[in-house]
């Protein structure tokens, strides 16, 4: 489950970030390495909510620093 979600998130960002110079890995820091704005982070959460049919509570945002964090938090929510 976790691996599938992780891959899905990486693919999503690969599609959005049109820059081959940026290597997107599970350890990529969303705001630093990928230079995402908070708006783009919100949009990506929306996409994940739609894909998995879940609601991601605002308070879990704080725990999402890297791509792997996002995958971990989302896996927990989906499994609940």
């Amino acid at each position: 489950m976790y691996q599938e979600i992780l891959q899905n998130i990486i693919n999503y960002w690969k599609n959005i970030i049109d820059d081959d110079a940026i290597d997107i890995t599970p350890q990529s820091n969303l705001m630093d390495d990928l230079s995402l704005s908070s708006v783009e982070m919100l949009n990506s959460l929306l996409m994940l909510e739609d894909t998995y049919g879940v609601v991601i509570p605002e308070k879990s945002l704080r725990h999402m620093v890297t791509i792997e964090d996002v995958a971990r938090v989302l896996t927990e929510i989906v499994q609940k």
Partner: protein
Amino acid sequence: MKHKQVEQQNFGTVTELLRQSCLNREDQLLFIEKRKDGHRITNRRWEQELLETVGKVRNLEAQHIGVICDLTYQCILCLYAVMVAGKVVVPLEADLTADSLDKYIHKADIELLLYNEDRIDGTVSRCETLTIPEFLARPGKALSQWPTWEEGRNACIFFTSGTEGEPNGVLLTQKNMAFVTTYGAERPLNRNARALLFLPFHHVFSFLTLTACISDGCEIYLSGSIKYVSRELSEVKPDVLVTVPMFNELIRSRISKGIHNSGKAGQIAGLIKLSNALRRLGLDLRTPLFRKLRESLGGIPQLLITGGSAVSVESIRFFDDIGIIVLQAYGMTETSCSISTNSLKKNRHGSVGHPRPYNQVRIKDSEIQVRGENVMKGYYKDPQATQRAFDGDWFRTGDLGYFDRDGYLFITGRKKNLIILSNGENVSPEELETQLLQCDAIEEVVVMERQGHIHAEIFPKGEEAVIRHAIDSLNHRNPVYKRIVSWELRDTPFDKTSSLKIRR
């Protein structure tokens, strides 16, 4: 869309404002909760439930009541009921850790904290707590009539980022909280206007916007979450949006993407050129020319009132070209929100408009200073900070600025050391520096803004891995907007002033 001049009213107190807003509007719709599938509340029900809740607040021993703010009707009931009961409400940010709430509870002498389930991370032990549904389910007798209070009675404590690293509690009165209705400038918030609110109420800007909407008899749509606003816009089709610059950028990127995807970018660029040329000749055809474009964008209103931090002229022009007006406003918690604002008739891009009629503004040593009845009583239990914040009876904003020859106020920078992010959040670098200095591997640190993010420059005295760990754990504790996004180590200590403070 009709822009009606709303009469200037002075209610004296927020309690009086609420009482009058309920008159003759019994069946009018007031709140619509998106979170609850469009749950609707009329004015009659609001008045009845508010007075019931006031009765319950009166039964409490607590005089200072904290409310964790979310965009729910029940939370709004609690916020106003405390003030109408003559007690002091402390609106607080949702989703904070229990640890970080402690300092607010302590600073504002909160005796009881009301919250909705899941909106606090951890368990608060420093004061009594109750969930909002539990509290509202308590038995209690509704007040048979509205109480009256003196104008100077304490009503609210809002927290702002202090500049010495500790948050300041800004004490506002019953009168301060009613000031927003003496706006004076044109507002499109006439009766039945639709407003979609999505900014959190622990900020005075958002709270007073809510109060203005209640006072004016708007239909108030409460957003399900900031995540869903784009979607909700097309359902609600609001007449006006009160926004922060970050949100304008979200809309702007949506518009640009929409234009790009439609394959009509060239055509629209041509229309903008034509329309701007006609405007120079005094003919404004933006409404008909761009109607289709706006309709295709789904629910973006023709008016955005934006505050919280600086809006770029480029962004204002982008919207202006296609007939969406951005009115930039300027204010602080300490001045009960608005100090100055642009209006439909007087809107100068890049400026924050003319001062509101109820306050005087002067420039002293390049600093913007404000005097008037909208100015706070002081910082709660902090006479020294209060004293430092005033020059006689003039409140020192800490912002640098000037008036142009037509009386428009411009802001050029800040005297105080404060990071103001595009979502309107203020972050004190000293607060983060103090937190970082608790790490043994950090000798000196300066926190600053870099490309819209928070950046830390560190002079280390230990291992990089330890520093990395400290920053990671801090980022997990703090709210997202305080996240230290990037950091770097330096080889030499910082330059110091004669008093051994780091020269920024």
